[in-house]
């Protein structure tokens, strides 16, 4: 499989995973979302080049891939900070201080929604409900871990913790 493609963005091991994804579905197109996830986990974001490549892998137009990337909010089209903090401000979090957390981070790091700090360490995003209403307010880091039951007092400590944990995170380069 995939012999005709030059300039692979995935290595052989990752191509095996792609093959596995393809086996799960009756159509190749269905693997668009899973393969985009693989791409983002490896490179940190999805470039034009990556969309072209996925189009070749799955035998779909690259415009289809672009359409999917722009529809779903969790795919990034440009690099985020190493620590991308997604703060929920929906009703349950808002009632318990979600906006206080968001504004505290925004003021402290001097960045607005979807911006990143000049050293590329932090970026923030105001997001919709993440299904953590019982442990509000909360934030998610890099589309992965939840940090729940937050308060403004805890934020300085959390920023330090995150810096230690993700400070050396490096994505592959396109």
């Amino acid at each position, binding site marked *: 499989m995939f012999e005709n493609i030059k300039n692979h963005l995935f290595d052989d091991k990752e191509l095996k995973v792609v093959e596995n994804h393809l086996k799960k579905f009756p159509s190749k197109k269905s693997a*668009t979302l899973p393969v*985009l996830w693989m791409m983002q986990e490896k490179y940190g974001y999805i470039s034009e080049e990556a969309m072209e490549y996925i189009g070749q892998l799955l035998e779909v137009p690259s415009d289809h891939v672009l359409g999917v990337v722009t*529809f779903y*909010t969790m795919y990034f089209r440009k690099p985020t900070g190493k620590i991308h903090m997604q703060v929920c401000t*929906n009703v349950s979090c808002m*009632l318990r201080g979600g906006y206080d957390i968001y504004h505290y981070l925004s003021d402290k790091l001097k960045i607005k929604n979807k911006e990143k700090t000049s050293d590329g360490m932090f970026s923030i995003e105001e997001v919709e409900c993440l299904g953590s209403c019982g442990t509000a307010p909360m934030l998610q880091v890099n589309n992965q*871990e939840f940090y729940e039951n937050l308060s403004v007092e805890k934020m300085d400590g959390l920023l330090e913790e995150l810096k230690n944990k993700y400070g050396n995170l490096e994505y592959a380069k396109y």
Partner: protein
Amino acid sequence: MVKIILKDIPDFDKIDVYEKHGGFSALKKVLKDMKPDDVIETVKKSNLRGRGGACFPTGLKWSFMPKGNEKPKYLLCNGDESEPGSFKDREIFEKNPFQFIEGSIIAAYAMGCKAIYCYIRGEYWKWINIMEESVAKAYEKGHLGNNIYGSGFSVDMYIYKGAGAYICGEESALMNSLEGKRGYPRVKPPFPAAVGAWGMPTTINNIETLANVPEIINNGPEWFASIGEPKHPGTLLFGISGHVNKPGVYELPTGIPLMEVIDKYAGGVLGGKPIKMVIPGGSSMPPLTREECLTMKMDNESLKAVGSAIGTAGVMVMDEDTDILDVLIRITKFYYHESCGQCTPCREGCGWMLRVLKRIKEGLGRHEDLDLLISVAENIEGNTICALGDAAAWPVKWTIRKFRPDFEKYIKEGEVVLTNPNKVHALRNSPEYNLNTDTSEYKEVEVRIGKTREEVDELRY
């Protein structure tokens, strides 16, 4: 208190513990002694209703699937769970994943499905990993795969990770998403049971619905039908959030008084304050006033009587200091953000409602604005492909109806605002204005004058 899903057994999420406490016995019984039609009859008799919000009878839904095997059939499990205020499915993934897996295999057998796809929202990274592991373990132990327990029935189960779109919780949008497309809802008919995922017959069930099935098989449909309210039997996973002392997920029988849920289980309102408003089933459901809360029973029929519905049983409690307008702005902003953009009433209407609500919040509201909002809401409702339009319209319409004085206090008597229309128009159409809560820039171009509407009209002519 009877517990069907969140049982108080330590380590129930481990497959050995689950098997030791009678896990997979329902599946064994079904594959050995029951025909697919018997299973559907049993579920019909139990009167199990879908837990995803629409309360559609599950057995009836299953019976819509065509018989025979000319075409492959699919079962989709809806774990998208994006409704604000709803966080029950992650509790099932975490505390009782195998009962859900067992329930979905039974459902697949009843309908003759070839494969099960479990769609989980992308943000649930932790719970997706849990489910991947759980499914692998179920394969290892022979509960999934080819020729299960030598019965000749084979089924595969796959976990599918979403990527952050509320609309993908709608069944036909979920199918499009599973097919690797943008999550646009489809026009119905044809219904999924005829033309679903990849054009094949498909049934979609909520995670909680499927998790109920093994216990119905084990204990009999009569046992299940006798729990809670007869018209909407069983237990619900109430997700309680907002201004309460002990927010969280509590499994309680249907028909339980709302005040008991709040006071006894959720530890009462923060600081002992009186309740201002309760949203009973996720943010799209019409809210309840304090008086309605006092006598309300938590099942679909009782809530319908006051114009609301049980939804996903995500109860959001707000104390008397809450600004209802802020809450409604936040809810409307959510639906504006999540509208997929296919239908004009929803795509444009949500933006209109948001901008009018923000205008009222800034003290620039007009008297006719409240009726305008209700009019816009009513023109969205029922005029869209999927129910997102309704979900956006209901909170606006019912919150204004039930809490009108809270909105009127923002609109000052007889005051009129003149604006520089071009500048305001340009600003309102910029994406920053729509998505940012900070609107100070917008305020600057509004000029407030102390004249009444009649006086202004006279000046104009």
